[in-house]
């Protein structure tokens, strides 16, 4: 029997400060035992428990893509006890990671489909993982049109700025990068809230078109009617939820929404599924 509570030891290999307010940092981890990387075989949409001895664990979406080898990446917002400590850690420090946990986005269903990726704020991490996976030469032909709508409060609050720039140059992905507002005269992308940009830029709904939506509750609240108007079936709207977690494996009992655990049965749910669940998230 494998102890599911025992984290893999990892070393912090790189720390990137993502946003101008320094509230978001990306941590690149390397497994101390190389075999652990194979055991941590994951797909985009899954999460891990970052484990700091003496502080505790935090469930964080995996920002790296399984197509990227030799490391795993997590982008972490500084908000509580563990994340604040993590933000003060340095390259070379040792900690732990448990996972991969939860279900990924439904990649088998998504094959041969159009995908609209809609993200807001710092909920873009597993979406970054998804885009890297989709754009990989080994995978791109498996999907039809890819649209991305990603918004942040200001240009300085966008994650993965270099990659966004590079994706915007490509012709095999429709990038719609937007900010709530900016006085930067050099801003060359869009201005406007995510629901508005979705209304303008997202393709119409069809059985072959799926939307993956990750963002703050307010963004989700106003994006859903837009997708309804565009004709998206609730089976074709895929969301990723968060709840307070401890074990991450459906045992400790705190992240349930009705009979489903966000950790083990989610965090990915279709809107159809969520419509039949209590709103306890």
């Amino acid at each position: 029997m494998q102890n599911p509570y025992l984290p893999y030891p990892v070393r912090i290999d790189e720390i990137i400060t993502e946003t101008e307010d320094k509230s978001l940092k990306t941590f690149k981890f390397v497994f101390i035992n190389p075999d652990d990387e194979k055991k941590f075989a994951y797909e985009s949409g899954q999460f891990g428990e970052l484990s700091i001895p003496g502080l505790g664990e935090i469930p964080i979406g995996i920002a790296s893509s399984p197509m990227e080898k030799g490391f795993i990446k997590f982008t972490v917002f500084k908000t509580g006890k563990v994340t604040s400590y993590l933000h003060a850690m340095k390259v070379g420090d040792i900690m732990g990671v448990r996972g991969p946990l939860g279900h990924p986005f439904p990649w088998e269903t998504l094959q041969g489909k159009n995908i609209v990726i809609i993200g807001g704020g710092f909920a873009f991490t597993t979406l970054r993982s998804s885009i890297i996976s989709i754009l990989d030469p080994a995978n791109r032909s498996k999907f039809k049109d890819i649209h991305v709508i990603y918004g942040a409060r200001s240009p300085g609050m966008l994650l993965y700025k270099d990659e966004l720039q590079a994706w915007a140059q490509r012709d095999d992905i429709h990038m719609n990068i937007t900010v709530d507002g900016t006085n930067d005269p050099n801003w060359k992308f869009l201005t406007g809230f995510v629901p508005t940009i979705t209304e303008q830029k997202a393709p119409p709904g069809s059985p072959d078109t799926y939307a993956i939506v990750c963002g703050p509750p307010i963004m989700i609240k106003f994006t859903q009617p837009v997708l309804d108007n565009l004709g998206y079936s609730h089976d074709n709207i895929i969301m990723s939820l968060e709840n307070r977690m401890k074990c991450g494996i459906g045992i400790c009992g705190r992240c349930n929404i009705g009979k489903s655990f966000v950790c083990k049965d989610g965090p990915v749910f279709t809107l159809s599924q969520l419509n039949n669940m209590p709103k306890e998230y």
Partner: protein
Amino acid sequence: MTLIKIDRQTWADGIEKAKLAYRVFGPVKEKNDHEFKQLDKGEMPDFSLQNTRLSPKAIVYPQSQIMLTYSLDESRDDCRIMKEVENVTAPQLVLGIRPCDALAFPIVRRNFDSPEYQDTYWIKAYEATTFVGLACNAACSTCFCTSAGTGPFGETGQDILLMQDGDALYAKILTPKGEALAASMGWSKPAEPDAAGKLDALKTKAEASITASVSTDKLKDKILLELYGAPFWEEEAFSCINCGTCTYVCPTCWCFDVQDETHGLSGVRMRNWDSCMSPLFTIHASGHNPRTQKYERVRQRFMHKLKYYVDKYDKGIQCVGCGRCIRMCPVNIDIRRICDKMNRFDAKSCACDIASS
């Protein structure tokens, strides 16, 4: 199944013998109540009880349990690398567990031992434990085990069932584990031929002494969101003070918290029983809380036991009818009343339903 008669001397000698091979737990009197304790040499379980105040779940699932250890000493190679704690694997023996409490272990097992994840701590302790039940000859007014999947002479979750007829003590061997235990304890004398008949009569009498019941037959068919939205939750939760006693004494409540505790340069990651009655149970780091209201937490407890569990496993309710939460609730919230309300809830005519209750 073998029926054995145990005389007083064999009983005492057997327990002392068992203590050499097992950690032996049994009910002992503590102040005004009984509790399960590990029995020292010469100490006997006290069977002059209705049931223990706390359920014996802690024997497999301690209230606080160290899972991992770590060192923060930078001079060590294993600094900040979590180490697994060797879990209970030495044999344990629980003597005198009531059939209701014994049923709780198979119910809880579905949570700790799923096809996807095995909670090694719980499973190893459970597998190392032999359960010797003690049939109830008379029920409390709060007992409703016969409508919760077992009965005063219920056998589920036990390796041996002990039955008392006056001063005589009988043991029914139920599993190979029980057989091994009986052999090692020297419990080998077959019961007299008419014993089985007498015990059956006792069983019938004991079952008849249970006057309380719950109806659970319609829970599965209810639409989850309708039951969740039922209008009685606020009213039922009104008197609740969210003290958590119900979750603490419950043999089937399994939720836990995980905390790190550091002393100097070394520390432990431990789990502790937790309670869905606490707002901290679900609060996000952002301050957002999906269950801010008291009634939402009360609803979670009952929906978990009587609907979510029922739907998820299709193995009945997550309740064994021991009645502890009813007896110990400081404000008289009664799971039987709530279960019946849930079972007969009809979303279409709920207004009439409430008026008549």
